[in-house]
């Protein structure tokens, strides 16, 4: 059961094979952890149901219907904003461009969120009161 003795007796081909297998196993971890979770996404909900899940890296403008009318969301340069809203106070539009977090329009029941798993981990607080 002497490991040193065993290693001395292995051929170069055995060692190469072992190294490749170990490398493969680590690349598997990296693949699963890094590549599989898709890039940051934009989720747009209207009136309680999810309407769009879009990648943040593709520029586009979409509109959703809420109880008060049409809310228009513009995605550009990895940011987004609300450009049109039927609500009375237009707070969602006044928020301007955001790169993370969310824009909420309470009157028209529209929630636009940018997020990925990293955001959840990095969050300093779990909720806010006030």
């Amino acid at each position, binding site marked *: *059961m*002497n490991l040193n*003795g*065993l290693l001395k*007796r*292995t051929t170069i081909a*055995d060692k190469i094979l*072992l190294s490749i*297998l*170990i490398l*493969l*196993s*680590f690349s*598997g*971890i990296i693949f*699963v*952890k890094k590549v599989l979770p898709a890039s940051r996404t934009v989720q747009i*909900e209207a009136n*309680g149901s999810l309407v769009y899940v879009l990648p943040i890296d593709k520029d586009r403008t979409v509109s959703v219907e809420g109880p008060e009318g049409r809310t228009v969301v513009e995605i550009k340069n990895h940011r987004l904003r609300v450009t049109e809203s039927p609500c*009375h*106070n237009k*707070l*969602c539009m*006044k*928020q301007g461009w*955001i*790169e*993370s*977090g*969310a*824009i*909420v329009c*309470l009157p028209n*029941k529209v*929630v636009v*969120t*940018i997020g990925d798993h990293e*955001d*959840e981990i*990095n*969050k*300093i*607080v*779990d*909720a*806010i*009161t*006030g």
Partner: protein
Amino acid sequence: MRDKSKVESLKVTKSNPPTPPFTKGGRGGITKVLLFTFYFLLLTFLCACTSHKERIYRKSKILMDTFVTITVVSNSENSAGKAIDNAFSEIERLEKLSNFFSSESEVSRINKNAGILEVKVSPDILDILDKALYVSEKTEGAFDVTIGPVITLYDFHKKIKPEESAVKKNLSLVNYRELIIDRNKSAAFLKKRGMLIDLGGISKGYAADKAVEALKRNRINSGLVSVAGDIKAFGLKPDGKPWKIGIRNPRIPPNPPLVKGGKGGFSDDVMATIELNDMAISTSGDYERCFILDGKRYHHLLSPKTGYPAEGCQSVSVITKECAFTDAFATGIFILGPGKGLKVLGKMGFDGIIVDSQGKVHTTPNIRGKFEFKRTS
């Protein structure tokens, strides 16, 4: 016979070994190393793909005219989703019963029958009214669900403040002692015509309590329900730490309300953080529904004695087990002001943080050391 066959099979093995045992230089050694490697790979693969690890799942929905977020710890996305949806349904059910603006709600039925007859109510509305009256007693009437006739005179969106005469007239209809509840008959009655109950100061906290009960019924052992600023936390996060709640800085108001973009979520607007385990917290602030007219701030936390916004505080946070109480006491203590407010907190044995109108922070003795101040600008 049986023993004999065993001996025979052993003999066969002995006389004809399949592979040599693990000896120096034998190919069996390599095979073992390869087997170890394979085993290691298999373990790594299983670890990478396992779905049994506990994770945080979060969903948000607009309910009770506000942003509701439910967070749970679960080892399955499916069961987390189901539990959260059940909790949302529970909040929706309570919203239907307590909605001030819907003519179908039980609250509206009580209001329509004010001064006429008593109204049969569900156990939930009875429970909310019972708790509301308790808080009214403990806050010397500063928290009062019969504030309806005065609060309807204000329009916080259109920045309309009422005439003094109208406030005076409607103030005579505000008195929690004239809200009668009959626990045996499960009924409620407002004594005077024109009286209106508005459960806005307690129903969100109550809904958070009920949503947590719904999550627990669905075998969730750890989670966080946040109905606007009324938050109830239970259990611990997957990393073994308690839930961390930020308390908004009353003079860096969110623009727009509730959620603001920025690295790591909301941290920009937070004045202090506190860790909660099996506790609830609510904050009432003069920045929530408000407008500024002629340099004066008009907010929704009206004194039932004057009919005008209370002036002693910028924000009040209350911490105790039940979110219905944190919600209602935060309002009541805000209206009472810092001096009397701290006394009430002391008597009740609740924790609290009061930011007075000058921006000075007052805390209950027990809470010191439990929360952390953030330096913002």
